[in-house]
């Protein structure tokens, strides 16, 4: 048991990544403020990166390349998302995601 704790293996990194991912997930589905939801999404992506990097130690550098692409993608997505937010905010003057319920029809 102690060995499992002291000897840091892949699993540990995976667990940390999972925990971060799940925290980000909780934030997404729980918070009202849309800025914070965005940030939690970024956190989730970051956690996925960590996961990939942990695997890349086992199977080569491909994981890191993948993580690089994810990072680029995250940046693009954050830019566009914030653009959408600003466009939306111009009309509604609120960042309460509960009021964004126009999709129900």
């Amino acid at each position, binding site marked *: 048991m102690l060995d499992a704790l002291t000897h840091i293996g892949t699993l540990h990194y995976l667990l940390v990544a999972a925990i971060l991912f799940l925290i980000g*997930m909780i934030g*997404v*589905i*729980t918070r009202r403020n849309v800025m914070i*939801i965005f940030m939690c999404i970024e956190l989730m992506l970051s956690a996925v990166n960590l996961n990939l990097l942990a695997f890349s130690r086992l199977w080569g550098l491909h994981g890191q390349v993948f993580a690089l692409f994810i990072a680029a993608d995250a940046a693009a997505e954050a830019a566009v998302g914030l653009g959408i937010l600003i466009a939306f905010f111009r009309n509604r003057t609120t960042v309460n*995601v*509960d009021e*964004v*319920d*126009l*999709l*129900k*029809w």
Partner: protein
Amino acid sequence: MFFLHNLWMVPLLPAAGAVLMLLFGRRLGKSAVNAICVGAVLAAFAWSALSVAQFVHAGEPRFHLSLFTWIGSGAGQLMVSLYGGGQAEFVVRAGMLLDPLSAVWLLFVTGVGALIHIYSTGYMAHEGGYYRFFGYLNLFMFSMLTLILADNYLLMFVGWEGVGLCSYLLIGFYFDRHSASTAANKAFITNRVGDAGVLLGSFTIFWLFGSFDFVRVTELARANAAHLMGTPILLFATLALFVGACGKSAQIPLYIWLPDAMEGPTPVSALIHAATMVTAGVYMVARSNALFVLAPKTMMVVAVVGALTAFFAATIGLVQNDIKRVLAYSTVSQLGYMFLALGVGAFTAGVFHVFTHAFFKALLFLGSGSVIHAMSGEQDMRSMGALARKIPITFRAMLVGTLAIAGIPGLAGFFSKDEILWQAWSAHNGEFRILWLLGVVTALMTSFYMFRLIYLTFFGQGRMSHEVEHHIHESPRSMTVPLIVLALCSVFAGYLGVSPSIARIVGLHGQTNRFEHFLAPVFENHAEASASGGVVKEEAPEEESTPIEYGLMLLSVAAAVAGWMSARRAYANTAQQVREPIAIAAPPVYRTLLNKYYVDEAYDYAITGRRALGSTRLGAIGAGEALWKFDARVVDGGVNGAGWLTRFTGRVSSWWDKWIIDGLGVNGPAFVVRMMSYPTKILQAGLLQWYALVMIFGLAGLLWYYLFHLAH
């Protein structure tokens, strides 16, 4: 044979008088009315007398004149199946039958009718509606003559109804008087009850014999006497006919109309309710003697009813104060005698009594009319008295009539009444002796109340007011002459029917009992009938007369004299206050008799329903009320109930529609859908985070499944 062959003229003459009165009467003066109407009846009498003379001369048993087919079969014949099998054609031919029976009736009806018409010219001289009165009288004569001369039951019934109608019209002559119109209704309705019996009897006779014709029916009855003796159907037919006779001839229980009929003018009472109409019942029974002889039980009923009626009416007559009422009850009583005679089989005696009674009763009524005329309209004997000297002719005439009715020897009533009593004693081995006893007691009472009438009216002290006393005068000749004529008839008519026993006493040989001989062919019911038990008058051999007969004769005379003497003792010297011995001796009895045994009241309770027992009403009016209540409550209640039911159904239907159909049927599924969609609805709130959460739930579910269900 001219008059005989044109016998149809006899009823036609008064009919013409009636029609002329109907059409022109209003415009005619009194003398014209007299000429037409009285002349018509006088002519009818003359014609009848001549016809009868020609008939007797011809010597045939009967004369038949066929007039026309009344209810006929032309092309299609109406066949009716009879009681004992066989078929008969239903056809009624109107015709006239003149045989000894109808000859007797014809003569006294037209004769007395003519006298009364003459009398009425004097009596009704100061009354209104003169032409109407004579028109009705002539109509009555026509109906009565139709009745007498008819040759079959249905035509006789036409006359029967006609006399009933005329009785109604004449009783209610003073129609502005409520009592008069009520009395007229009573007479007509009571008669109607009897008429039902006549019709039933007539049709039963047709059903039995296939014919309504008197001659034919008599022939068939006598031919099949052995078969028919005592059969129930004949019993029914004869009883039905007798019920009709009770109605017309005022026997118990249908006599109630006769006393009230005194509301009509006195000539009407004399003609219709004394001499002619009320004898129609006797005529019918005598005409059907062949049938009655074959129904011994009916004969017994006839005799008992007759005797009881005679007794009953006489008791009531003892205490009546209205002069005409006494005579009315006397009529009922004498009619009872006639039926007693018929019932014991003494048909001839009964018919003889009809004959003599017509004379002295008409005389008594006309005399009382004369008294009332003299008394300026007063009819109550308690306000009369000491009139003998003031109206002598009336007095003497009425005395003659009273002697006749009481049965004092020498006058007509004695002969006929005595014959009846003797027959009652001796008929059929003395079965009817108790009825004889009733007859004797009734004779005593008859004598008593008739002499009471005489003493109260003509003797004693005058109890009238001064004004009335001043106006007392003898009646005009038009009234007194008929009185005299009738008085003579009352004396001498009896000699037509002197029985052999009396003749032996008096020494009148060879002229005995012409009446009976004259009528013999009508009543010759053969020996077979008597042998098989029918009630037939005993063929007493002419030579023999038993001592009993003389004894009975003496007894009846003694009864008459006893009645006279008691009346004399009680009433001869009546002063201002009339003292009634019965009232002194037994006041409750007096009260009961004075109120006519409360029979009218009983009828009002039970039959007509004019008086109610508390809150319930019986009788005809009660039935009407019950039907009305039934209609109002049950039938209308049913209708209302149907209406209520419809409204109620509408309410139920609307409730059903509102709550069940709309509530459950329409709103229910909507509600369910709404409920069911609620969870589904919240899944699609439009919120992104909710969608994300749902995805997470899905993921968790998958993971859970993979971890725990697939791994092992």
